[in-house]
């Protein structure tokens, strides 16, 4: 418990650094939020900038922003007048979270069993064929796999809608693209660590004393072999984040990733900051969750801290 608290406290300065860095970067982006519209009278622009606090020096804006952030206020959105950034993000975060979770679930449900299967018969076709596929999965980026899947399943076979959002069927292509990309390294990792664990002494002991083979495999070996796999879930989540930018643009999904990209294109400083903070916080929490899961799996880690 003390450990969790310490980790949570550690997040505060980290997030603060992210806020400051993003703030200056977002402000350094050439062009302003009002440049794209029909040129407006200077007075109107001045009033608008005054309304959004953009006329103040940068460090004052930053101070104001951090004070409001501490109260949970992400500020007003500039390109969505009348909406606060929190409302804009809140309206879209569900889509991204559900897509990400389904993809992660799919990755684990496909990746781990494939790795176990491959490790159970090393160097047979059961190993070679799936491992060949995972190699392809590692090297084909999501923005290549996505269009190819769409080309086959929606334009070629006509089974699935190529893009859009709303019903469960729209989930299939984006979730599969993201999930399969993540499943590939998971499968390789599972296979690798199972191969290492299965040659250890305690496995031989368990076999020797007559534990049923399946029990040795799934209870004794897999529990230890899964440790690196669980550790990888943190980076995997980061991969899902960057994947989601591409997938959401590709399949026209109204999620957070596309919001971030449009916010940059629109120079909506507040929205850029808001989405970055949400992403950073989500990743920090996911890493904490992965660490806690490792402690649950491995008493040695839990004792060490």
């Amino acid at each position: 418990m003390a450990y969790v608290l310490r980790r949570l406290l550690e997040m505060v300065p980290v997030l603060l650094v992210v806020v400051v860095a993003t703030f200056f970067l977002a402000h350094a982006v050439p062009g302003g939020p009002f440049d794209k519209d029909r040129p407006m009278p200077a007075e109107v622009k001045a009033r608008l900038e005054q309304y959004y606090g953009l006329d103040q020096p940068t460090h004052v804006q930053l101070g104001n922003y951090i004070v409001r952030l501490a109260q949970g206020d992400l500020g007003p959105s500039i390109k969505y007048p009348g909406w606060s950034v929190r409302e804009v993000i809140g309206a879209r975060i569900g889509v991204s979270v559900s897509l990400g979770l389904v993809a992660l679930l799919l990755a684990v449900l496909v990746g781990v069993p494939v790795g176990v299967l491959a490790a159970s018969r090393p160097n047979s076709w059961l190993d070679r064929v799936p491992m060949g596929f995972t190699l392809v999965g590692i090297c084909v980026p999501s923005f290549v796999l996505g269009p190819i899947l769409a080309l086959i399943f929606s334009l070629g076979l006509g089974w699935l809608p190529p893009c859009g959002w709303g019903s469960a069927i729209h989930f299939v292509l984006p979730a599969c693209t993201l999930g399969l990309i993540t499943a590939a390294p998971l499968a390789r990792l599972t296979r690798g660590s199972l191969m290492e664990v299965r040659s250890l002494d305690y496995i031989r002991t368990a076999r020797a004393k007559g534990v049923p083979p399946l029990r040795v495999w799934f209870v004794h070996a897999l529990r230890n072999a899964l440790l690196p796999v669980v550790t990888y879930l943190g980076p995997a989540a980061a991969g899902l984040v960057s994947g989601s930018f591409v997938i959401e643009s590709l399949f026209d999904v109204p999620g957070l990733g596309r919001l971030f990209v449009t916010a940059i294109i629109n120079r909506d400083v507040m929205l850029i900051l808001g989405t970055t903070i949400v992403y950073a916080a989500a990743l920090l929490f996911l890493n904490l969750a992965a660490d806690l899961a490792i402690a649950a799996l491995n008493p040695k880690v839990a004792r060490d801290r």
Partner: protein
Amino acid sequence: MSDPIVESLGSESGWQRFLKDRAAVWSACFLLSISAVCFLSPMIAPYPYMEQNLAHSAMAPSSAHWLGTDLLGRDVLSRLLQGGMISLFVGFIATAVALVVGICYGVLAAEVGGRAEDAMMRFVDIVSTLPLTLIVILCTVVFGQNMPMIFLAVGGVSWLTMARIIRNQTREMKASQFVQAAESLGQSRWGIFRRHYLPNLAGTIAVCATLTVPGVMLLEAFVSFLGLGVKAPMTSWGLMIKEGADIMEECPWLLISPSIVFALTLLSLNFLGDGLRDAFDPRSSRK
């Protein structure tokens, strides 16, 4: 590409082991030829990459245009070569940046030791949990067409793994007898770094570098795919894939050729990195 670094290792048996790994050797050949072709593209490309010919727009592959033409009638093969030049260039330069930063940071952390080392490594841990893709995207937007800054941004987020590995190895070496001997003979820290650390790290560095290049190229492609990286009339593989994906229904060849070349390049880099690791990294277990 990373061959000169490896050559300086001069380990005969390492080279022999490497040459036996056929996947790695073929990958090296593929990478060498694709780099040569791309970097020579201004001389050997069949058409100027930005020459538009609206009379010949969106043509399927033919004998005049081997890989077809895009909507503006530009030759896809020529653009593929020019895009490859950009993608590979970003990959190599950004990796070099990541290498320099990673080596300096890792060696420095191991050298100072104690609390400062712990703090430095904790910093690496924390930074690697952040959404760095977002930061890179922002940087590329801020610095726009300024290519060197894009290299710095991409390299600036890719050095973390490198620093971790280098620090672990340096720490081991620091405690070893040959370094202690050098210390007691009065060699300076810089001398130890140059004469002892660097040669012993060379194998690890070569492997790390080869495995960093695909990540870096992927990052550049991501950013270009989102329309925020390389700007017209220049192109990169990521940008070509995006343009192809937009109109894949009518002109699938615009998507297929850059996708295949990009995936093959990444695949070869991974094979090459694995092969180098198996051949030159004493720690890697060969099963």
